[in-house]
């Protein structure tokens, strides 16, 4: 996909124009939103005014209940990323390092990866119950595939000289993994985790909206069931900001030259 902003060098004047245009687009969008909210064209409260949404965000962020549910969802996602990430890296390294394993099993991962994972939720409920276990399992199932595919790709791109150097020093299998494979695969693994985090968030929260009594997904579906639209907009806004923010933060880790100078 085209890298954002990959349109060549921008002159300072053009940069100013870009900033002005961005500000203008935001103002127009907000004005149209406010006009639709005031017009009564849609059902009442479907498009609440910005002031109402702003107040709802304020109320949401001031409630301890929000942070309790946020921490539950965050813990589920972290658990999913830890289990799915570790499994994905191990499987990715195995498949990337061994041509036979790749030819035997990689097509399973490649084609199962993009299937809709939420349909496995009934099975996860039967296996892990209706509590956080099934939500973590959904997250694991979601994030395993992109991380495994990315780690396998990264493994194949490791400079063969590095692997030969390791073998010439007769390092153990664990040392090969910790001293050569993992450091050389940093960028693809971080990118895989970034992709995995995105789908783990979706998998976990969708599971929470389907069957749960805690977590951000539960709060969203609860707001829907009582038709508290400002609260739903507030939750979705906070969720989008958090998701995009965390994604961008992990993306920075993958970019060379962003680490602090030792």
């Amino acid at each position, binding site marked *: 996909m*085209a890298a954002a902003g*990959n349109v060549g060098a921008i002159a300072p004047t053009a940069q100013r124009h870009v900033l002005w245009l961005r500000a203008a687009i935001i103002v127009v969008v907000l004005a149209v939103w406010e006009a639709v909210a005031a017009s009564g064209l849609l059902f009442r409260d479907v498009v609440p005014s910005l002031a109402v949404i702003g107040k709802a965000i304020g109320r949401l962020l001031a409630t301890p209940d929000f942070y309790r549910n946020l921490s539950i969802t965050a813990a589920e996602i972290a658990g999913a990323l830890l289990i799915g990430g570790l499994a994905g890296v191990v499987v990715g390294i195995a498949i990337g390092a061994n041509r036979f394993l790749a030819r*035997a099993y990689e097509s399973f991962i490649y*084609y199962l990866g993009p299937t*809709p994972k939420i349909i496995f939720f009934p*099975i996860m409920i*039967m296996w892990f119950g209706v509590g956080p276990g099934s939500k973590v399992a959904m997250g694991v199932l979601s994030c395993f595939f992109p991380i495994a595919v990315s780690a396998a790709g990264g493994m194949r791109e490791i400079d063969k000289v590095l692997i030969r150097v390791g073998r010439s020093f007769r390092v153990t299998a664990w040392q090969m993994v910790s001293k050569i494979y993992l450091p050389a695969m940093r960028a693809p693994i971080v990118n895989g985790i970034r992709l995995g985090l995105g789908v783990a968030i979706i998998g976990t929260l969708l599971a929470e909206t389907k069957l749960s009594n805690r977590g951000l*997904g539960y709060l969203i579906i609860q707001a829907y069931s009582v038709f508290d639209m400002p609260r739903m907009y507030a939750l979705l806004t906070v969720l989008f900001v958090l*998701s995009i923010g965390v994604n961008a933060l992990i993306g920075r880790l993958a970019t060379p030259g962003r680490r602090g100078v030792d």
Partner: protein
Amino acid sequence: MRRAFADTRFGPPAVGVASLLLALALLEALIAAGVINGFIVPRPSQIIAAIPRIIVEEDVLDRFLQTALEALWASLLLTVVGIGLGMLLFRFRLLRLATETWVAALASAPVVLMYPLFLVIFGRSATTIVMIGFAAGLSPVILKTVEGFAGTRKVLLDVGRSFRLTNTQLFHKILLPAALPTIFVGLRLGLIFAMINIVGVEFLINFGGLGQLINELAERYDLPGTYGAIFFVVLVSVVFFFCAERIERWLRPGM
């Protein structure tokens, strides 16, 4: 000897399939021996036997057509709106500079989580499912359209200008054919995102085609049927991705 086997065309894939069958046989034996609870995991033989039953009794063909129709509407919207917006961003460079980062950010946003909002706006209907599919697949189509047009080799455009082509001719004869393979990559990605979300939302809101089937069978606690339906949906998805990939390779022989 091992290396020679690893290099054969059908050897490793056959091992992959054989190990899958072995795992299923092991599962069957463990359930039969009572090691794994048969009320939680049905026997693979029961699941396989349930597939013809759900195909006949649950109107799977109708459900498949319903999901396919939703995917078709979403893909039409993606083609018209996504490619249209992509062309707009390519045509106006300043607009592209200002908004491309936002479009890329949208790609990483969990759009499907907005389904309760779509339910309020469009109701519990096929429109909600189509619109979620459309929203989920929009970013790659826009970004790849821009990339396709922007990646047209300058020498081709210079040749066109030297022939004094009008802007319309330049677009039809040079820009569009040069961008088409990349645009198709975007459409394939967009359609895959749309398809995943369409089946997912069908399951979540218990409406529509194949996704709803799984939900209904799970609520009836028809375990072999649920596992069979999930297997069927996964199979349909895999065939869909496989076909999309083959079509793309056919359109981009040098890929």
